[in-house]
């Protein structure tokens, strides 16, 4: 009977010791704006588009799961609010005109800034 009373107390103490032991380990928080997560180059971030390489074949539209995200009627544009960064367009583009960048901070103040048009691409 004694063991049945002291066993729970022993378990509670063991739990407490683990919590105390965890107190001494190093901190894991990442102070976001100052320390950013360093990401490798195969990270699927914002899509980059080179105008001269593109042959306007429309392959990327056929492959893109988000319907209506890419449109190439008069100029090439990607709607960043629809894009799910799956990388299909980059993979199936015959001339590698599209490629991933490592940038993942894409918040904008206005909604139509999210639609990346060709002339914005032209100069960078």
């Amino acid at each position, binding site marked *: 009977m004694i063991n049945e009373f002291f066993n729970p107390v022993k378990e509670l103490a063991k739990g407490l010791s683990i919590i105390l032991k965890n107190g001494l380990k190093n*901190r894991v928080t990442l102070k976001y704006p100052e320390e950013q997560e360093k990401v490798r180059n195969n990270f699927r971030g914002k899509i980059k588009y080179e105008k001269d390489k593109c042959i306007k074949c429309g392959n990327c539209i056929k492959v893109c799961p988000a319907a209506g995200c890419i449109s190439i009627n008069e100029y090439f544009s990607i709607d960043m609010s629809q894009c799910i960064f799956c990388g299909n367009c980059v993979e199936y583009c015959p001339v590698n005109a599209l490629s991933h960048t490592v940038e993942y901070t894409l918040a904008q103040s206005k909604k139509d800034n999210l639609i990346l048009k060709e002339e914005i691409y032209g100069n960078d």
Partner: protein
Amino acid sequence: MSLFYLLYIECLSFWKMPEWLIFIMWYIFNFILIVILMLLTVLFLVLFERKYLAFYTRRIGPDRAGYKGCFQTVADAIKLLFKENIIPKNADKFLFFLSPLIVFVPVLTVWALLPFSSGFYTFHSCCSILLFMAFLAIPAIGILFAGYSSGGNNFALIGGIRSCMQLIASEIPSFLVLASIVILSGSMDLSVIVKNQSGSILNWYIFPSFLGFTIFFICSLIIMNRLPFDFPEAESELVAGYNCEYSGMKFAMFFLAEYAMTFILSALVVVLFLGGYNAPFDFYITDCFNLSVILREIFINFEQFFWLIFKTGIIIMLIMLIRAAYPRLRTDKTLDLCWYIFIPLSIFNLFIAIIIKYMRGIL
């Protein structure tokens, strides 16, 4: 009358005031001091708890407002001040406004009863333990009113009912343990209890009634709704329990009351069992410098105040550690715990206290 009262009369003797006005001004002045002390400790406790829990989960805790997050609680308070006061449509308006007060005011008055040091206590009465526990029973009724009056919100209703169940279950064992302390110390006045525990660490009351200490500690956890027993506002089940519908200043009042109750109950545990403001080995630093009587009296009080705060800090850190480590108990398991285990144990503890008192009487 205590030394401070004499000092106070001297300072006021320049203005020719009637006798009764000085007497009343003394209590008002003391009460304002207590309110300031409480606000400071609550501000510190809220931030300390978040940092302390973050320490055990390998995080840093809030460190954006102020140097290392020191103004975080002030920022929270100001934010809550400007939050819109939403009153649910079919809420019982009068009770909805009253319940934060019912929860907050008794905790504030209880602060006045606690003997912070030999000279400094606002309200001195021969049965201050009874007053203490009587005032600490009222917030549970406030929580019930809060739950009942927030419209048709069933979460708040269940939270309120749970707080009453809890209160009754935990009051009885704590009163029995208080009875054993009163037997040991001979009087119901808190400052007398502390005086009887002066001297070395051996005649603290934790050693003769260690069983009483554990029971009272767990029952105080139940009264102040701390984690293993925080049923009225169990986040994962009742969303936010009784303070579901409260926002703005009223929510801040509930929040303030909870932390004030945490401090005051752990201070009570210290006063009853760990020899309130007595230094552990009856050694005061102020004795080494040979000061004049009045100066020594003042510094002794400050040092005793430090000892009380130091011991309460240890108890509060233990309470917060328990919050970090353990899951929540089920409501009916807690009631079984109180009715079936704590009450017989506290009666047994009463016998031990009587036997020890009798043995001390013979030696």
